[in-house]
């Protein structure tokens, strides 16, 4: 399937919005997370999501949208991210991000790769390939940290499954532009 330039720009801009949101969420969590090893994990990954947002934001300008164009996702998906952002427990933060939201995000990147024309949209494909490799590494970092901190247990293990399900239920997280609603951050 070949997407229009505008559809591709909107999808890349949504990925950018999510990357910047995750960067800010980790930044918000850093001072309020007591466990030093987890604070370090979150701190290191702030830069990873910033780089994803930067690469995606440069790509939007090549797709005839503004430089660093960000598009808020569908409200149902934004609500899932907001639920995670509001979590206070360290175990919930780590498991929620790295075992629920990040695998869901990876699946959405893979879906984009399946849907786009790999030659026509090669610059996007290269960016997403690199992001996917990064996300695999980030999840490995989190697993290592959880290995160091086996005392981090979730109060309600079923919450993680509910979060996964809520994210999965949002088939398309892109809220396509109806007019000029560009938000540049």
């Amino acid at each position, binding site marked *: 399937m070949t997407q229009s330039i505008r559809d591709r720009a909107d999808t890349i801009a949504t990925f950018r919005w999510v990357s910047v949101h995750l*960067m*800010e969420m*980790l*930044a*918000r969590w*850093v*001072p*309020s*997370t*007591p*466990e*030093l090893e987890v*604070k*370090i*994990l*979150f*701190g*290191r*990954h*702030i*830069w*990873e*999501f*910033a780089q994803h947002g*930067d690469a995606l*934001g440069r790509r939007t300008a090549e797709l005839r949208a503004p430089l*660093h164009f960000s598009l808020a996702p569908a409200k149902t998906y934004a609500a899932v991210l907001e639920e995670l952002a509001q979590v206070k427990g360290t175990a919930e933060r780590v498991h929620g991000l790295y075992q629920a939201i990040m695998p869901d995000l990876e699946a959405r990147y893979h879906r984009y790769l399946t849907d786009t024309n790999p030659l026509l949209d090669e610059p996007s494909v290269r960016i997403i390939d690199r992001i996917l490799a990064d996300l695999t590494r980030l999840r490995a970092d989190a697993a290592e940290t959880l290995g160091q901190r086996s005392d981090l247990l979730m109060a309600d293990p079923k919450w993680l499954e509910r979060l996964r399900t809520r994210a999965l239920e949002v088939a398309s997280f892109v809220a396509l532009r109806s007019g000029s609603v560009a938000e540049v*951050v």
Partner: protein
Amino acid sequence: MTATAAPVKTVQGVTLRLDPAREPCFHVVHTDAEMADWPGMSDQSRRERLHRHMNNEAAALEIAAQCLVDFPEAPWDLRMQLARQSADEARHTSILLQRLCELGGRKGEFPVANFEWCVTLMVDNLPGRLALENRTFEAGLIDILGSLRTTWRAAGDATTADLLDGILADEITHVRFANRWIKRLTEEDPRILLRVAQAVHYLRAVNDALGPQPGDTNIVGTTFTQERTQAPAVYVEARLEAGFTQDEVLEVLRQAGFRSILPEELK
């Protein structure tokens, strides 16, 4: 200075931002006098130095991260720099924790203070925070690391000296981007210079109120001598590399008590 309803604490009559989260194993204190700071390079003193530095790096991470949260309208390129700084400070914290453990230490072995966070987070604007955290505290760290590398090497610990050398290189980049952005932002809006000046004035007032005086002692009986309360030797080369102008470096030298050795025309 602060415009938000952020939680605060009062230390000897001075209002400061409440400390960031720490694990229960840490004993958080609020002044230099409550820190276990020994002179010399005994095994205990080495571990305490690493422990204190580790916590300060964690605080630097927290400050950079909180700036990303508090100033979403800042230019994207500046936010990128803050994100990179967050990751650098996180790496430094990790490196120092690992070295501390290698030397037989552990998290929470000594008291910690979060002075930089508690002061910087009272400032409600990004140029002011960059002026305090990057241009003042981190520039001061450049000076300290300049001499500490030699101290550790002379004490026979080349491993720690090399780690500090690597950290120093990163800190120079943090000071440099802050210098560049403060300059750029003040060129765009000269009123920002007033905010920077207010932040620096605020820090000076806090230091005057809470800083140890010569003759005071800390909780392990170490006396704050005139020498210990003075700023460390200025690492001129690294400060120039970090984007300070020659005039600014000379001003730091003057304030650090080196006026007498400066050429007459520069006094």
